[in-house]
């Protein structure tokens, strides 16, 4: 059965969606995240919870998703196919459903060679497209990947991701089409820091009719400092931080860099709001999540539509 999540309803109504994300803690202390997240109530439509981002060990995504749910925020449970085979993926998906988690974002995940346990055995039993198809099969037909019927009717709203900042656009658009054909109901992009290549990608997707078939939520990022930007550039695959942004951050005093990073983010949100074919923003504020409410407010994204 199709989920009726907040995020799904907002996108279905053609409203401009606002989501953000948290990395779960490396440990068991969730107090600061939950305290922080409480400030987001009524300001975001859903909150993504990353699944061991950059292949570094963090608390499981479903656990923090459930805790966010308990404090009144709608989670987007990120699931990568990097660490779990189809048995574990399906098992965790059913568990998440039983806990009330309904938004699922399916990704392949960064390679373990880039993470904090490079000695780990990689899994990648499935790729993200196969996993999206499997989640849809479970939801739509109540069948596991082996065609066995399951009990109950889990509800999911299923998303996929895309990186617009690639050289071979045609190839990546083919893959995007496959994701949507496999059953992705929304697409979330890597953070946009440069509008021109993003629009080039978007136009190709539009030309193929993909933005009509599936809502696109554009990622945006508030860079906390030049140091953070450098770190992301060096360690996070698929994130593109142009020199112009580095220069702009570097041109202000260190204690002004966070504000400058927020300004860049807000400018990008404003431009994205005016861009046809995009139906939301996904705001990433690594290491400065406490600034999310301010960014959302200053970007004119409030009040959030009441869809109850």
């Amino acid at each position, binding site marked *: 059965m199709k989920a009726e999540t907040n995020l799904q309803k907002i996108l279905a109504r053609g409203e401009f969606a606002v989501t953000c994300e948290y990395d779960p803690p490396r440990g068991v202390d969730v107090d600061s995240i939950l305290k922080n997240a409480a400030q987001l109530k009524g300001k975001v439509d859903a909150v993504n919870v990353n699944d061991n981002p950059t292949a570094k060990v963090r608390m499981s995504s479903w656990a923090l998703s459930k805790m966010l749910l308990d404090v009144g925020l709608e989670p987007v449970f990120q699931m990568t196919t990097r660490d779990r085979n189809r048995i574990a993926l399906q098992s965790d998906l059913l568990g998440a459903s039983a806990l009330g988690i309904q938004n699922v974002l399916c990704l*392949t995940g960064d390679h373990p060679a*880039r993470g904090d346990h490079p000695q780990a055995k990689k899994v990648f039993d499935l*790729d993200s497209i*196969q996993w999206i198809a499997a989640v849809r099969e479970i939801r739509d037909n109540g069948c596991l990947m082996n065609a066995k019927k399951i009990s109950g009717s889990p509800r999911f709203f299923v998303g996929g991701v895309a*990186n617009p900042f690639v050289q*071979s656009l045609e*190839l990546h658009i*083919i893959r995007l089409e496959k994701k949507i054909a496999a059953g992705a109901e929304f697409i979330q992009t890597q953070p946009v820091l440069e509008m021109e290549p993003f629009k080039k990608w978007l136009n190709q997707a539009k030309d193929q009719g993909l933005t009509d078939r599936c809502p696109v939520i554009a990622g945006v990022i508030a860079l906390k400092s030049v140091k953070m930007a450098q770190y992301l550039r060096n360690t996070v695959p*698929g994130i593109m931080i142009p020199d112009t942004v580095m220069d702009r951050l570097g041109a202000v005093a260190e204690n002004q860099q966070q504000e400058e990073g927020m300004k860049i983010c807000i400018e990008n949100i404003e431009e994205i709001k005016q861009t046809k074919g995009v139906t939301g923003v996904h705001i990433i504020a690594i290491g400065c999540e406490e600034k999310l409410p301010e960014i959302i407010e200053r970007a004119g994204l409030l009040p959030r539509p009441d869809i109850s």
Partner: protein
Amino acid sequence: MIIAERKPIQEILEMVRNHQRILMVGCKGCVTVCNAGGKKEVAILASALRIARRKQGKPITIDELTLDRQCEPEFIAWLDDPIKKNDYDAIISLACSIGPQYIAEAFDTMVVLPGLNTSFMGGTLEHGIWGEYCAACGSCEIHNFGGLCPITRCAKGLLNGPCGGSVDGKCEVNKDLDCIWELIYKRMKKLGQLDRLGQKIAAKDWSTSLSGGPRKIIREDLTI
């Protein structure tokens, strides 16, 4: 062919620490072609070990022998005589890991030591450089990918196109590594097969791979 690499000399010295009389066995198959375990490499390693042990004041005796192949029992049988006539306390095999395992199974009281690390199935890229091309998944599908194998040559083994970490045609794991999906795309475009690239490839049945347990092939037409 099977590509292998000799273990570091220190690791081999540590393995033979308590041995004095060794038979070192090379192989004239793949590991001769990839310059890891042929007659020449046996001679080089044996003399390196002799010199190192002499320096330690614990000389070692090493006999050298290179078999046609170590992955055939009939060639392993050639070791019967030398082993009977000598009092070897260990055998070092310079074959892929099939060799030392065959020797271990044939001579149940012999200590068998691997002199090589068996690396992968691949081929020569240029002199002294080898690349991996096959993961022996047990059900080849490269015709779906322009004749190239993403299971082996994509770091994530993706079957439906490149990941978001593929930037400028290079792999997120190693910037010196071509993203195989870029190469698959270019080939399929040339072949006029982009429509096939757009077809979803279903989840792979890994039961034919090592995931299904160690494999065995029985050819009824050939068994006696």
